């Protein structure tokens, strides 16, 4: 889908803040509210805008169980299907959040989420390492999120300007 200038602006605004009111978007891009609504609908229908999600800082939620680990996995590729088959075996697990094929000293990088370190450790020892093609795994637990997908978690947003200036 080729976007016109206004549509591109709308996508950019929504990508920064999906909750920007349609009326405000209309003002910013210079369209009527109806036109803006139609454009957004079209963008949604064409899956340019796939979904609206929230970025949550779960560490703020008291007693919220949850850990994330990045796991480096070395595997033996299979004739004919290369890494795809083993990648699929891995990404089908619900615990697995992301899977990437990597260049460098290992093959797959996967991100796993679990309720506790124990749960992740169990996943690695019971499910991941036992797969035939998996040669080795190295697990790194994430201790703190500073920036994620371009979003800084606790930015210093203080306005440091003097209140009135020429």
């Amino acid at each position: 889908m080729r976007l016109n200038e206004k549509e591109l602006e709308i996508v950019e605004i929504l990508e920064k803040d999906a909750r920007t009111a349609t009326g405000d978007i209309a003002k910013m891009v210079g369209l009527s509210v109806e036109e803006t609504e139609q454009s957004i609908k079209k963008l949604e229908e064409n899956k340019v805008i796939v979904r609206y999600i929230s970025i949550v800082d779960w560490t703020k939620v008291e007693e919220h169980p949850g850990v994330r680990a990045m796991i480096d996995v070395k595997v033996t590729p299979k004739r004919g299907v290369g890494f795809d088959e083993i990648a699929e075996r891995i990404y089908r697990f619900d615990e697995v959040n992301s899977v990437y094929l990597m260049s460098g000293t290992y093959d797959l990088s996967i991100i796993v989420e679990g309720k506790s370190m124990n749960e992740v450790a169990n996943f690695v020892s019971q499910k991941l390492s036992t797969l035939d093609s998996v040669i080795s795994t190295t697990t790194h637990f994430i201790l703190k999120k500073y920036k994620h997908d371009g979003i800084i978690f606790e930015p210093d947003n203080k306005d440091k300007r003097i209140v009135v200036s020429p």
Partner: protein
Amino acid sequence: MESTKRTYVSKLVHELKPSGIRRFFDLAAGMEGVISLGVGEPDFVTPWHIREAAISSLEQGYTSYTPNAGLLELREEIAYYMKTQFNVSYSPTDEIIVTVGASSAIDIALRTILDPGDEVIVVEPCFVSYVPMVELAGGVAVQVQALKENDFKILPDQIEAVITEKTKAIMICSPNNPTGTMLSKSELEGLAQLANKYDFLVIADEIYAELAYDEEYTSMAAIDGMLERTILVSGFSKGFAMTGWRLGFVCAPVEISSAMLKVHQYGLMCASTMSQYAAIEALKNGRPDVEEMVKSYRRRRNYIVQSFNEIGLECHEPGGAFYAFPSVQSTGLTSQEFAERLLLQEGVAVVPGDVFGESGEGHIRCSYASSLEQLQEAIKRIKRFIDSLE
């Protein structure tokens, strides 16, 4: 011995009026929860790669003076920038001086060209420093009023009416602080004709040149025959979000530049070294940042102008800078009354238009260099304030 107390402050300085902005600063600074649309600077922090360049220059020990005119590498970057962005050619070795903000560029320009009693035509509403700086340089500021009915653009006839034998220069600023008005190529040509006919200079304050939202920017120096008559003032404060670095520059034909360099050299020696290293990085790699910021200002301008008109404050669409200049005449209040009552009643700080000159009366300057959330809240409060007047 009988003694009357001696006054140490010069008569000239004694008689300078303090800036009208100061009063609002004092009022607003003492209040809690104020939303300020009174800030004359970007809400962006300087992009990180530019800050990093300054840090790196410090780490490497570049902490000494630079040449008076500034680092040659920076002047070369400025020359390239002015050529590619604004189509004006200046020699980096003798037509560009790196200054302490556009402020000091204006100051050395005026002190270089003015003999006592020389007149400088100042177009109002304008930046609060112009008139005092002319006076401090020994000149006489002749104020002409750009009017609302002309979209705050000065007409050649108005200028012609005040030209005398003593007219040495005219000061213009486009896009303008406080009105946001940008002059088109043909409007600049109209001024250029007068400058040629009556043989005076144009001090063109182009500090907001990067922030043009609808039309491509035309520099005064790019108008036919104007390179020789223009003292072009610009800098990094607004376009690159670098106000606190205090870095600007001035470009002029060599005859004027070499004279300005004397003033700059004796008065300031050179601009801050680490800021100069930051500016090199800004010019080399800062284009994408500028474009992002321009996009963001344009959206906010569209938002605020439409919102003002909706709540009953008539507002023309400014072509550049980050100021909206709506009229408050419909409320029956003067700009001072409006601004003061709005601040006390609703905690929104704006700057009354009359501090920028007589023709700004009846308007308020609202900077939209604030987050959308802040702008929304400000509009809500201003609407409530206007409704309370009825």
